[in-house]
């Protein structure tokens, strides 16, 4: 399972955990066994520092959720995992299921996409909260209940004392998600994975939930990995962004950078599809074409068929993740991968890392970053 770690840890990030990274992911791969295996995550590496808020952005099917749940091995049995995941020095891929239990919940909290299905319909919200409290601290049933009510109150559920006796179906979608968040943050985890926490919710509730996540994680210095398909969601919340496409990270940099100078045509397209207030736009621009079939791997860059700035090289060779200057020179000089590796080493998205892109022909930022214009 961790056979690849020898090679991958030799990258510039150094041995995981040694330089203060909370989480180091190296060459993570997730394959769903089926008649035709589905490669959901196809070699993803990154580092997270303590207290950071990082966004992981991509279309549905890009492998972002599978990649995040794979960190604590929370995928169904028919998912095969490969690569290494190190959390505060502990190699999560080699832990036993029993050992993982002390990581899940306690060290890594998770907020799921759909609060309508992620809560158990036949147990009261209070019960589901109390069991987290009591797992973490050995308190009696009554004290556990009291703590559950307090937790529910901190996440902004009114009348928490009474509502802990309610079943999930008696909660609104936003309230349910608040309850899920309460469960996730109650043991003060070092890492919070928020997997599309607002997607299933009404627009009006989305902002409140994001604010709540922001507030709770900042209070406790929790690292947050915020997964979303919506660039708009990550804008105000995260310091860094990683953009995923077809199971790989295709661009990574500070949120500011990615918004101002997107260096991958896919990010540019995602950007364009955002509704804007500053320009009068009649209708949303959508990205042409379909995301690639993850059970059918193609040669070359998986985004090439939909890419407005593709060049011949894109059809035959899948670009590695390079620093932006390297990528630009590679485009001009036609560097081979060996030369690229010589210049860049093996760049891994991490705190204060350089702007990375996986593109043979990175788009040049326009003078004004309005992003308006013709449809590619």
């Amino acid at each position: 399972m961790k056979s690849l770690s020898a090679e991958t840890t030799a990258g510039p990030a150094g041995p995981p955990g040694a330089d203060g990274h909370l989480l180091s992911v190296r060459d993570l791969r997730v394959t769903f066994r089926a008649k035709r295996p589905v490669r959901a995550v196809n070699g993803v590496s990154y580092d997270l520092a303590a207290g950071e808020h990082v966004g992981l952005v991509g279309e549905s099917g890009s492998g972002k959720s599978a990649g995040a749940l794979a960190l604590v091995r929370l995928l169904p049995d028919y998912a095969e995992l490969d690569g290494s995941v190190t959390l505060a020095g502990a190699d999560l891929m080699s832990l036993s299921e029993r050992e993982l239990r002390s990581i899940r919940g306690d060290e890594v909290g998770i907020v799921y996409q759909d609060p309508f299905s992620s809560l158990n319909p036949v147990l009261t919200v209070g019960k589901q909260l109390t069991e987290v409290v009591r797992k973490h601290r050995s308190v009696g049933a009554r004290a556990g209940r009291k703590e559950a009510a307090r937790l529910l109150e901190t996440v902004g559920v009114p009348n928490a004392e009474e509502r802990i006796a309610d079943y999930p179906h008696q909660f609104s979608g936003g309230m349910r998600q608040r309850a899920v968040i309460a469960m996730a943050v109650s043991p003060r985890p070092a890492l919070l994975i928020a997997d599309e926490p607002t997607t299933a919710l009404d627009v009006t509730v989305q902002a409140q939930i994001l604010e709540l996540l922001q507030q709770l994680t900042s209070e406790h210095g929790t690292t947050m990995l915020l997964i979303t398909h919506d660039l708009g969601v990550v804008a105000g919340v995260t310091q860094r962004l990683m953009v995923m496409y077809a199971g790989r990270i295709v661009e990574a940099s500070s949120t500011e950078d990615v918004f101002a100078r997107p260096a991958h045509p896919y990010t540019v397209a995602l950007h364009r599809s955002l509704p804007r207030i500053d320009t009068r736009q009649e209708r949303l621009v959508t990205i042409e074409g379909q995301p690639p079939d993850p059970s059918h791997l193609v040669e070359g860059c998986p985004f090439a068929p939909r890419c407005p700035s593709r060049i011949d090289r894109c059809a035959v060779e899948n670009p590695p993740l390079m620093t932006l200057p390297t990528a630009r020179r590679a485009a001009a000089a036609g560097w081979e991968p060996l030369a690229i590796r010589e210049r860049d080493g093996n760049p891994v998205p991490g705190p204060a890392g350089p702007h990375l892109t996986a593109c043979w022909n990175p788009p040049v930022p326009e003078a004004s970053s309005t992003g308006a214009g013709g449809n590619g």
Partner: protein
Amino acid sequence: MRWYVLRRLALVPFVLLGMTAITFFVSQLIPIDPVAAYLGGRGAAHSDEAERAIIDALNARWGWDKPIPERYWIYLTNLLQGDMGDSSHTARGVSTDLANVVPPTIELVVAALLIAMVFGIPLGVFAAARRGGFWDTGFKVISTLAISVPVFWLAIVGFTVFYGRWGWAAGPGQLDIFTRPPPEVTRMVTVDSILARRWDALFDTLHHLAFPALVLGLVIGFYFARVVRSEMVDALESDYVRTARGKGLRRRLVLYRHALRNAVIPVITLSGLAFGSLLIGIIVVEPVVGWPGLGQYAFTAATRLDLNAISGVVLVISLAYVLANLAVDLMYTVADPRVRDGMKS
């Protein structure tokens, strides 16, 4: 929820009425003249005059000379007064016979159901938790054999071995012939023994009950286990179980508190069906092991083509089935908070 329960209760009389109608019309299918059949069964009347008198009496009781709708009405009123006609093989009223044979059958049903649940539900959870593995495959093979075996055959073979050869199981009847029966109160020997504090009789009758209850309980238990397994597999792949695992809860809590609580809801519904197969099992197992209940009565009635007795048995068993399914529906509303609040039906 109250609305749902009321509607469900209101439906019961209609279902029962429909059932009596079907039972009645089916018994009208009999290709021979009922009077002749009745007399043939007795083979008694020698003079025309005597025969006439009997026919008149029968017509007065059953309206056999009247058109069918009227006959159904008479049948229904008789039924409501507890008159199900006479059994041709015992020559008693079917209701009297049923009052004698139903209590032992209730004992057997309760015992078998208890065994089935205590054995089947954990087994299903066990198989689901190891889905796709060695134990799960073993479970699949054995449970498939269990639901494919004719239960009466299993009972015969088992009885031959465990009673005939090894003498572990008790013989026919509810008590050994040397055991003095407890005073008859409920006609359920287990209950009567407890009421009379006759522990020897209780022990003896439990020994007699054990074999048929185990055969039926195990077969129905495997049926339960298969349903529990497939519902558990679904539940284990659900988002809320993922949430529970994501909290780092112990495996047992995830299995029993989170997954099983949800999986038993459909199992409750299906247990109504399982109860139906249990009732059928009773009919064929009782005559094999000589348990003096409804099944043995039905077996003899079927052999003798005693239509009144068969109709009586069918009605009683179907009534039990309808009531069991009603109880199951009501349990369902208790088990699922969403149904309780009328979110789902």
